[in-house]
């Protein structure tokens, strides 16, 4: 990728051994809108703020949480356009796997391949790292899983995690509230409460997005009406 004139890596080591472009990419993630994920005993929930630049924007045209396969979904913090590229590549990789093995791709495999793409962009010529961190939620034969992938391409499995602007408060809140035997519904309530913590303005079904996957192994994004119902329960 890139022109031959740029066949040198733009991400190089500093004298102290750091890859500064990756650190800067993480800054871009840290200034993005808050998102979080919680793994329950019987499912996973991911959620994000959906703050749009103006009331003139048609919020129905924006969907920050995207399905990658029928049983895997993803949310991001950071740069939206970079996220779209990763979604497209991941979906293609999932389909290629299915074509070859006639089986749904396991969550760990898809995460690994997506992370490999992100790593490539930290080493290849003429490109910059992705300015997004991803939270991948899936349910396969190994049960419910939640992974976080960073711009460097490193990934970890999490019981609960948060990213973006309010990350430290959100993580502290999650650490207090998380229990291993949480049910999916409880996890959704906790996710909403966590978002509420750092939320500026009135929270509603129109300015947050929530995606869930349960034992039915069907990832879906909640409608604004469903989110409003959960919000009412939380009040």
């Amino acid at each position, binding site marked *: *990728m*890139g*022109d031959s*004139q*740029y066949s*040198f890596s*733009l*991400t*190089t080591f*500093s004298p102290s051994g750091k890859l*500064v*472009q990756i650190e*800067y*990419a*993480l*800054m*871009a*993630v*840290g*200034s993005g809108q808050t998102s979080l994920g919680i793994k329950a005993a019987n499912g996973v929930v991911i959620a994000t703020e959906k703050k*749009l*630049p*103006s*009331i*003139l*924007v*048609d919020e*129905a*045209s*924006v969907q920050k949480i995207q399905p990658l396969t029928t049983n895997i979904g993803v949310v991001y913090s950071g*740069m*939206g*356009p*970079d996220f*779209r*590229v990763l979604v*497209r590549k991941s979906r293609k990789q999932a389909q290629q796997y299915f074509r070859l093995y006639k089986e749904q791709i396991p969550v760990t495999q898809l995460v690994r391949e997506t992370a490999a793409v992100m790593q490539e*962009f930290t080493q290849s010529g*003429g*490109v*910059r*790292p*992705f*300015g997004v961190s991803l939270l991948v939620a899936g349910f396969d034969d190994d049960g419910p899983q939640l992974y976080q992938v960073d711009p460097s391409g490193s990934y970890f499995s999490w019981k609960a995690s948060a990213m973006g602007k309010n990350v430290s408060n959100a993580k502290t809140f999650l650490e207090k509230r998380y229990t291993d035997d949480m049910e999916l519904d409880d996890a959704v309530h906790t996710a909403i409460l966590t978002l509420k913590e750092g939320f500026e303005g009135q929270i509603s079904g129109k300015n947050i997005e929530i995606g869930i996957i349960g034992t039915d192994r069907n990832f879906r994004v909640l409608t604004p009406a469903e989110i409003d119902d959960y919000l009412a329960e939380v009040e």
Partner: protein
Amino acid sequence: MSRGSGSGYDRHITIFSPEGRLFQVEYAFKAVKASGITSIGVRGKDSVCVVTQKKVPDKLLDQTSVTHLFAITKYLGLLATGMTADARTLVQQARNEAAEFRFRYGYEMPVDVLSKWIADKSQIYTQHAYMRPLGVAAMVLGIDEENGPQLFKCDPAGHFFGHKATSAGLKEQEAINFLEKKMKNDPAFSYEETVQTAISALQSVLQEDFKATEIEVGVVRKENPVFRVLSTEEIDEHLTAISERD
């Protein structure tokens, strides 16, 4: 050659600055404003209207060749605000893509699909060093079979959103403030109201009354879903209606 150290090339190519910003992308936004014109788009109940200033800098120029409104297909229009040369290359590629889409899939390329394609292309320029971002903000309009009238705006960063109304160019923020007040209660504008809101927004923000030859207006309507550029006579009718109303 110092690379990626934060003081070096982060302003010259699209690599991250120490705060995690992409300066080249931010400069591209400034280039859109530097063109000196403002554009406005408004979506009504069953129509979409876009308006832009028509500044002909030299009397010797052929006015008919000065335009920012382009038909991508018979049904899709694109208003390009910013650097005209970048706009022309974008339009050329969009026309090609829309034609191939029609050939490949057998139906017309929808508004949101074209917008996404433009935005994804713009994203590539923000990530690969060998091409700079385009200094163009593109407003795409059309009538979607399932969702009705659609107005999308794509910017140099690769973002794209659907809009009820939007603006681009020099007085972008003032225009958006004006439009937010007008569209606060989700009005469902008729065709005439849509066009007049767009034109009067431009007049209010630039604080001048236009002659029909000083602005360009493009529309799509549900009853006639082709993209059409209004003639000077039609623009005059709307301008008269606005001044009589006030």
